[in-house]
């Protein structure tokens, strides 16, 4: 009897141990308090960067300033930093896990192309009625889906053609007339490439090899818009007839011609432009500090290199896009105090602090930039304001992006029509599945 009692006691102990472990995991379902011990309403905000990075420190600085400014109103911001150790998917997975365990922050940062899918899935909140129109109109771009506002950009980016002035001079090219306001044409672009090639210089690194991640999509999609093409219908659910339209094909054909005519290739080394063997290099603003600091033997000063805008065909188009803020559809139903933090994080002052840390372009027009006229930063800023076009807004963005990259990857060796039709059908299959969920 005594032994049986002991056995039952031991079993009970085991059960308690098991339950405590399972309980520790299972307790994730409860929500954390929205009010701290001092009676402050706590607004949680999640950032996609490491806290110790320059960008993370800039966010922390603005959060600290917010807490000081709103101390009397009993509103307190609490920031979490989710470093993207394995890319943007890693960050997204964390957000989804938080949503499933009812722990999603009140404000999140998100990569702009995800706006449609996040909005469609109600992960993020419609802020159309929260953001004053004067604020909204001050942004160069905003994140909208089906006519509603869902996100405000943290900062902006644009890309262009960095060029080696010495090599241009060697090829007898004067590029001074091509400005952000008056971009060059597809034909003029090819003409410049032709002159460089004739001078024995590899004309341009179009980053055709950057198809392992979003880079190729980000840098090359404007060519399709410039040729009059598009990728999906306005509602974002139809790709066939858009992705493979005649106009889109014309844009892709231009890129293909650059390969087949020997103006660019998939084999250009990552540093070939920086070591002085390639005339032009398509990249974003983040290349500016690299050229200034790392490649001084090829580019000793800013007179040795310049930045040219995207070429135009039937219309002007240039790359835009960065991360944005959004209010989430979490358990916190009263969004009035969350609004305060959102609007604080996008004030011109916040924008200045953050862009000073990242070197990117401010998302708001009213932010003073002090860019020298004609400087690379000035070219990017003006181009962004006058010709910036967002990547397609569609719930099937991941399918669009990977298929776009597949087209770029296969441009050199495949029949373009066949390639575009196959990729358009693949995107359409994905969009059909997503549409069936509505």
């Amino acid at each position, binding site marked *: 009897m005594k032994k049986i009692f*002991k056995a039952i006691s031991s079993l009970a102990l085991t059960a308690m141990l098991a339950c405590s472990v399972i309980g520790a995991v299972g307790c994730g379902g409860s929500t954390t308090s929205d009010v701290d011990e001092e009676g402050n309403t706590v607004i949680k905000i999640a950032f996609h960067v490491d806290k110790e990075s320059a960008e993370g420190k800039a966010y922390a600085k603005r959060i600290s300033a917010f807490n000081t400014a709103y101390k009397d109103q009993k509103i307190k911001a609490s920031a979490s930093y989710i470093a993207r150790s394995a890319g943007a998917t890693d960050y997204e997975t964390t957000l989804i896990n938080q949503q499933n365990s009812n722990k999603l922050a009140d404000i999140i940062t998100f990569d702009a192309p995800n706006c449609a899918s996040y909005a469609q899935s109600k992960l993020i909140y419609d802020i159309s009625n929260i953001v004053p129109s004067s604020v909204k109109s001050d942004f160069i771009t905003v994140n909208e889906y089906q006519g509603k506002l869902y996100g405000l950009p943290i900062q902006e980016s644009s890309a262009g053609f960095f060029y080696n002035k010495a090599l241009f001079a060697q090829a007898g090219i004067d590029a001074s007339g091509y400005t952000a306001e008056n971009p060059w044409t597809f034909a003029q672009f090819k003409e410049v490439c032709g002159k460089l090639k004739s001078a024995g210089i590899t004309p341009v690194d179009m980053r055709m090899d950057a198809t392992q991640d979003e880079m190729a999509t980000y840098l090359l999609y404007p060519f399709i818009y410039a040729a009059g093409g598009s990728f999906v219908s306005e509602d974002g659910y139809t790709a066939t007839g858009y992705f493979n339209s005649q106009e889109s094909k014309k844009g892709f054909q231009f890129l293909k011609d650059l390969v087949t005519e020997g103006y660019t*290739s998939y084999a250009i080394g990552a540093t070939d432009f920086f070591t002085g063997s390639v005339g032009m290099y398509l990249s974003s603003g983040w290349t500016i500090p690299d050229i200034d600091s790392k490649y001084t033997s090829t580019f000793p000063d800013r007179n040795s290199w310049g930045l040219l805008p995207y070429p135009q065909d039937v219309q002007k188009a240039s790359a835009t896009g960065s991360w944005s803020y959004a209010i989430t559809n979490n358990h916190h139903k009263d969004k009035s105090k969350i609004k305060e933090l959102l609007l604080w994080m996008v004030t011109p002052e916040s924008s200045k602090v953050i862009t000073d840390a990242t070197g990117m372009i401010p998302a708001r027009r009213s932010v003073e930039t002090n860019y020298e006229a004609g400087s690379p930063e000035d070219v990017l800023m003006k181009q962004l304001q006058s010709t910036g076009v967002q990547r397609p807004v569609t719930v099937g963005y991941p399918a669009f992006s990977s298929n776009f990259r597949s087209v770029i990857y296969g441009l050199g060796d495949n029949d373009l029509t066949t390639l575009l039709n196959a990729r358009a059908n693949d995107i359409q299959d994905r969009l059909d599945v997503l549409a069936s969920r509505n």
Partner: protein
Amino acid sequence: MLWLITGIVAAALFAALMAVVIKDIVVAKKKKVRYGVRESVSAYLLLAPATILALIFVMLPIVYSLGYAFTDYYLLEPDYMQFIGFENFIKIFESIGKQGMIYHAIINTLKFVVGVVPLQIGLALGLALFVNNKRKGTGIFKVCYFAPVVISLTITAQLWLQILSPSETGLLNSILGWFGVPPQDFIRNEEGAIWWIVLLSAWQGCGYQMLIFLSGLSNIRQDLYEAASLDGANKWQQFLHITVPALRSTFLFIVITVFVGASRVMVQPMLMTDEKPHTITISYWMYLEGYRYREVGYSAAMALLMTIVMGAITLVQRTVLREKD
């Protein structure tokens, strides 16, 4: 809802564990074995933390995955998950029929397995035979051959991307350039890319199997070789009639582990080409479906099918290679 399911599954698994404990106690009492109930319960108590963690982190995900395979779970909308029966499986077979990406993933995975299993095992055995002697300096070779195993796959993939760079300055192209061969785009080549990934993987993984073979080789009695030598057997005959039979169980283990590892290849194509028809593999496609395209249900269905196929093949391998008693 998700937590309710977790709770039910966890409770069921825990109840199963408790049943095993109780059964063990009853059997022990009936058979009047030497160890008592207290020892038995203590043993299970000691095992409990590991068992519970295994249940949570191994069994639960498997059970979840099984369940998800029959749902339309979309990663961003877990609350709208619905039971859809065999629809995901039908879609998979339809996609194979239409020669969609899953078709390419299957073909590439087959190519990878067919290439990497014999190559990696052959390399491992060759290296093991080479370093399996008492000559001076073989320790250095062992370290060299094993080094790639401890290097992250991400780093080795990047290293090989540099070696195979299509640029004139790429290592392999530079060497080819000495012989007047124009630069080759090895990884974009639709026919050749998967075989480069096979080579990389075999190179990276063979050091580990080499150690296992070495362990097997050290267990073979030297007098067998001496006797064979006295009987006039040459080295090849000794290898064929002594080494190979003695390594049968080692072979079985290595073939199964290399086969299973090869069937799950994902990191190399992910890092070297991203999602491309000529290098996509089943595991990578499952990952893409689940995370990039957020179709968790569909991805889970693929995982279930793959588990069944792999299990069946492993059983066949075990039967064919099983050591005769």
